[in-house]
């Protein structure tokens, strides 16, 4: 496939198992557009996902895919990327998958700065399991599992990522499609861990954070916003309420994890021959 002749159609068109009106459709559409704009052909991309409505996304386009366990997309992506630093690795995840079951890997991926783009469809709920609170559900949010409302404070993923000085931290809204496409392209270009937390209405289970709710609040960052200003980014990341700023909140440069391993510079590990002479030397040193 010649990347110049790539079209949207190359990413395919599939029947989904999502509810009509779900915010995931907008993300899927933006994702394809961003891949196209970035010139990433299906075979050049490896999606890694977990389990949830969000995590089904890569089944609905053409690309390489490893759809693994709930919450464990990041470690799989990290292993894949270290083993083959020539392929673009994108993680598709839900708020439950990424910040609930997978919370520990989230922290580690940021620390490693592994070159993986993590897209989190953040509907502030566990949707596939029929509507329990997720880590990003707001305090007081009522579900069948939390009949008196959520009693813990909501996890603010972008604030934690900025506090940890993650390489690329963005918040988006599926309802602002073009904006999302733009941020995704920047995320794909970023050489290191890139978090894009995408607000996504779940029309079946989240009757509070609806399209309208997000639409009324989400506003792109001003053009002169400097994502390299950590203080400002921390402040912006903490802003959540009547106004929710969306865009690239924070960006910092630093080598990606894999670039620190000389052996990764030589292409995929599996394609490198086993040096039996070297091994013999190593073995005989035990003599």
């Amino acid at each position, binding site marked *: *496939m010649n990347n110049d002749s790539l079209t949207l159609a190359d990413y395919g068109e599939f029947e989904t198992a999502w509810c009509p009106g779900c915010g995931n459709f907008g993300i899927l559409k933006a994702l394809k557009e961003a891949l196209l704009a970035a010139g990433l052909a*299906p*075979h*050049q991309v*490896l999606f*890694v996902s977990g*389990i949830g409505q969000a995590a*089904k996304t890569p*089944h609905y386009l*053409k*690309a*390489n*895919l*490893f*759809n*693994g*366990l709930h919450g*464990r997309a*990041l*470690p*799989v*992506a*990290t*292993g*894949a*990327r*270290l*083993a*083959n630093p*020539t*392929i673009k690795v994108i993680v598709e995840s839900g708020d439950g998958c990424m910040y609930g079951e997978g919370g*520990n*890997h989230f*922290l*580690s991926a940021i620390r490693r700065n592994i070159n993986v783009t993590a897209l989190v469809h953040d509907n502030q709920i566990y949707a596939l399991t029929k509507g329990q609170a997720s880590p990003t559900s707001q305090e007081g949010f009522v579900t069948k599992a939390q009949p008196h409302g959520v009693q813990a404070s909501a996890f603010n993923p972008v604030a934690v990522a900025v506090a940890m000085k993650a390489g690329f931290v963005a918040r988006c809204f599926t309802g602002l499609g073009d904006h999302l496409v733009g941020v995704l392209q920047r995320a794909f270009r970023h050489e290191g861990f890139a978090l894009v937390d995408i607000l996504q209405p779940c029309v079946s289970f989240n009757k509070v954070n609806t399209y309208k709710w997000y639409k009324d609040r989400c506003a792109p960052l001003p053009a002169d916003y400097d994502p390299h200003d950590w203080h400002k980014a921390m402040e912006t990341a903490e802003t959540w309420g009547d106004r929710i700023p969306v865009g690239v909140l924070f960006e910092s440069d630093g080598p990606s994890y894999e670039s620190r*391993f*000389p*052996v*990764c510079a*030589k292409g*995929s*590990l*599996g*394609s*490198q021959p*086993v*040096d*039996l002479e*070297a*091994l*013999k*030397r*190593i*073995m*005989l040193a*035990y*003599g």
Partner: protein
Amino acid sequence: MKDTLQVVIGGEAGQGLVTLGELLAKSFVRSGYHILVTQTYMSRIRGGHNTFAIRVGVAPVDALREQIDLLVALDDDTVKLHQATLTQADGVVVIAESSTVAAGRCVRVPFKKLADPKYENAIALGVVAALLGLDQAVVSEAASAYFGGKDAAVVEANRAAVAAAYAWAAATPQPIEKLAPAGASPARLMLNGNEALALGALAAGVKFCAFYPMSPATSIMLNLVAHADEMGLVVEQAEDEIAAINMAIGASFAGSRSMTATSGGGFALMTEGVSLSAMTETPLVIVVAQRPGPATGLPTRTEQAELEFVLHAGHGEFPRAIFAPGSIEECFELTRRAFALAEASQGPVFLLTDQFLADSHRDVPPFNLETSATLTLPAPEPATEPYKRYAFTASGVSQRLVPGAGQELVVADSDEHDEQGHITENLALRVKMVAKRLRKLKILTDNILAPEYEGGDTAELLLIGWGSTKGALAEAAAHMRAAGRNVGTLHFSQIWPLAPAHFLDRLRGARRVVCVEGNATGQFARLIRRESGFAVGGMVLRYDGLPLTPEYIIEGLGHE
């Protein structure tokens, strides 16, 4: 002169007794002796009581003995704790002159006079070498090689301490018989189980390892990382065991031979990943280095109690293979085989070792690196067009491509999936996919390593064992045979799958069958019964955290 004897070095953690032990063991090997090392240590960094026991012999030695011929006591506690197991007739204690502890037949070493006390290890080494009649040059060279990385002054000081100690001990009349001269090839390696396992993985072409530190598995990874640059592999310390196994799976999917290693508690966290490896048909080698449980148990001791856990770990049903190396050579060979089998069957393959084997140094001839594991495999299936990761095939094995290596899209799924790898809820397809995965069992059953039998045609007493007990089993049987009993041993280095045809006649043919295991409930005996219907007549079980020894087995047979 003695053909074999047992040296035990005892002292506190932090006194450097592993350094001393390894140098002494290496000196034995380089002097043409065979050795077998057993280490015991506590879960602490300083203090407590650790031992480094070397069984040394002119002929190959298979197991630790409970009796000590030469006890090197780096502290008084060592004498108190081990005096009872000194051989009655002629056991000797090497101890500092300054110690006031009563120690029977003794060599009291004037440490302070021989060198600066910080070279205590070198002094002890020189003394023991002289006592047992090793060549001073061999010992000095071993010490120099060991301290070679440090500055020249340190090397020289150690050498001088060895020399002074050797001279002193050689000049003083000693209450100990020397070792008979030996003639094994000096071109042998001294390796412990984890080192051999790491070499096996490298020989198999491992390119990616992920782990979370856990005794006694950690040193496998430390051995690998030490050679990572030279061998072109990545060894990643993960944030937890769940990440470790998932990283290894990701790397394997992306085309690298991958491995992870842990112990029981860490493995518990990996069981979901085991199931993932099976469902996505991603090759994976998993080392479970056993230690006593449940829970944290005894972190630095040995046990064989994870057989049933590893055999059934992971939800759902899928084929797997489990190897349990019984020697250093098997640590190397079976690791290489595990990789080949994981690749061939596209799923999880296990190596079940334990702390005893992991830390047990032995002398072995260098491995042949050119050969590889020989497997009986089905003819490769023709490629499908378009490419389907899970194409239905006669063998159950579908062509595995590496994502990004070509235009074909590689799709793997943890949900039930169609041939392309996409999620499905088609229940007829489900049935076919289950059958496809289970068909791969044949690759495993076609390649079972039969247990090794030793003994006469029909044994009066047949001892069964698996994994690290191989040597103890052999030596116990040898003792009993020497005493005129007709004893056979049947040792399993592969514990799953099992083929009753490989062993059932032996079991039926023996007058009495006893299973010897390092656990409290006889897990392998149960498995034998499940698979063959044969009810093992008796058991010798050990679960105090120490390895099985010939004496323990013989005594256990008397009791039961």
